[in-house]
């Protein structure tokens, strides 16, 4: 995977969600996901199922109210796809790596705990980045400093500066990928230039 300086993605659907929405619009993605979950679990897509699904979704979001997730209002399906493909590749590569470490008898695996400062201040992007790094084998989120946008990760087998720097860049790269898909423009520009700086340094 090259980390060349890619062009800025085109901006699709940059509607400011919060301005004309209120809670309903903000919760719309959550409702859609809940209705889909309902339909998938029943395994059928009849109109009745959809109506009941919507009712159940409304009920669930009322009964178990959560603080609304603040989305940036930007969504780019192409970069989401790029992110998912890259993520799948990392999961496969990481799985093989961790598995091979497990089978390397006679050696004791060493690790590092690293600190990675993210660019974003959005809870949503930070959470997605943390989840991504958690799911990619070889890294584990130990601690999150929300106010400072900092993640602390346990990286299996990172025993020298090279490996540590590589792991750090992987996190920043994941953040940029996520920002490209759903993040705000300003943060994306900032994160990209930071990543480039890190790469060239």
């Amino acid at each position, binding site marked *: 995977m090259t980390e060349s300086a890619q062009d800025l993605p085109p901006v699709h659907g940059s509607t400011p969600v919060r301005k004309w929405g209120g809670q309903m619009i903000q919760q719309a993605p959550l409702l859609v996901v809940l209705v889909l979950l309902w339909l998938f679990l029943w395994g059928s897509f009849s109109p009745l199922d959809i109506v009941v699904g919507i009712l159940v979704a409304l009920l669930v979001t009322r009964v178990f109210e959560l603080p609304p997730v603040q989305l940036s209002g930007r969504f780019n399906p192409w970069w989401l796809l790029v992110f998912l493909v890259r993520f799948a590749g990392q999961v496969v590569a990481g799985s093989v790596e961790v598995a091979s470490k497990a089978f390397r*008898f006679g050696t004791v695996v060493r690790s590092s705990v690293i600190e990675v400062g993210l660019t974003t201040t959005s809870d949503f992007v930070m959470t997605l980045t943390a989840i991504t790094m958690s799911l990619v084998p070889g890294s*584990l989120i130990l601690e999150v400093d929300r106010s400072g946008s900092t993640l602390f990760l*346990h990286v299996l087998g990172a025993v020298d500066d090279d490996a540590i720097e590589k792991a750090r860049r992987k996190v920043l790269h994941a953040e940029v990928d996520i920002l490209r898909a759903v993040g705000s423009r300003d943060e994306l520009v900032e994160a990209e230039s930071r990543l480039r700086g890190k790469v060239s340094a």
Partner: protein
Amino acid sequence: MDDVIGGDGFELVAAVLLLAGAVLSLAAGVGLVRFPDALSRMHAATKPQILGLICVLVGVVLASHSWSALLVVVVAILLQLLTSPMSAHMIGRAGYRTGNYRRDLLERDELEDDIKRASD
């Protein structure tokens, strides 16, 4: 009810996927025994499992030739992807805070540095 998908080729792919999932699960088990401390073991316990589970579930769908199985499997995989980071984080965090790790096997510990800086 169930639409039939695929043919004999699917059986072969399903077998390969099931085998791959089994190997990954075995690796997780071996890692659980062999890795030195709680934090390293978390990697073994949670990670090969993700790809392993996906392999097994997709294999099951292909072998069962049914679309409705696919829907349930998609939900199972998504919920697994969403929940396993949470449990891994909570256990890892607790493991670190209670000192359940081998400091001598950490090449570098920037969280400790950060805590030191904060307490100074």
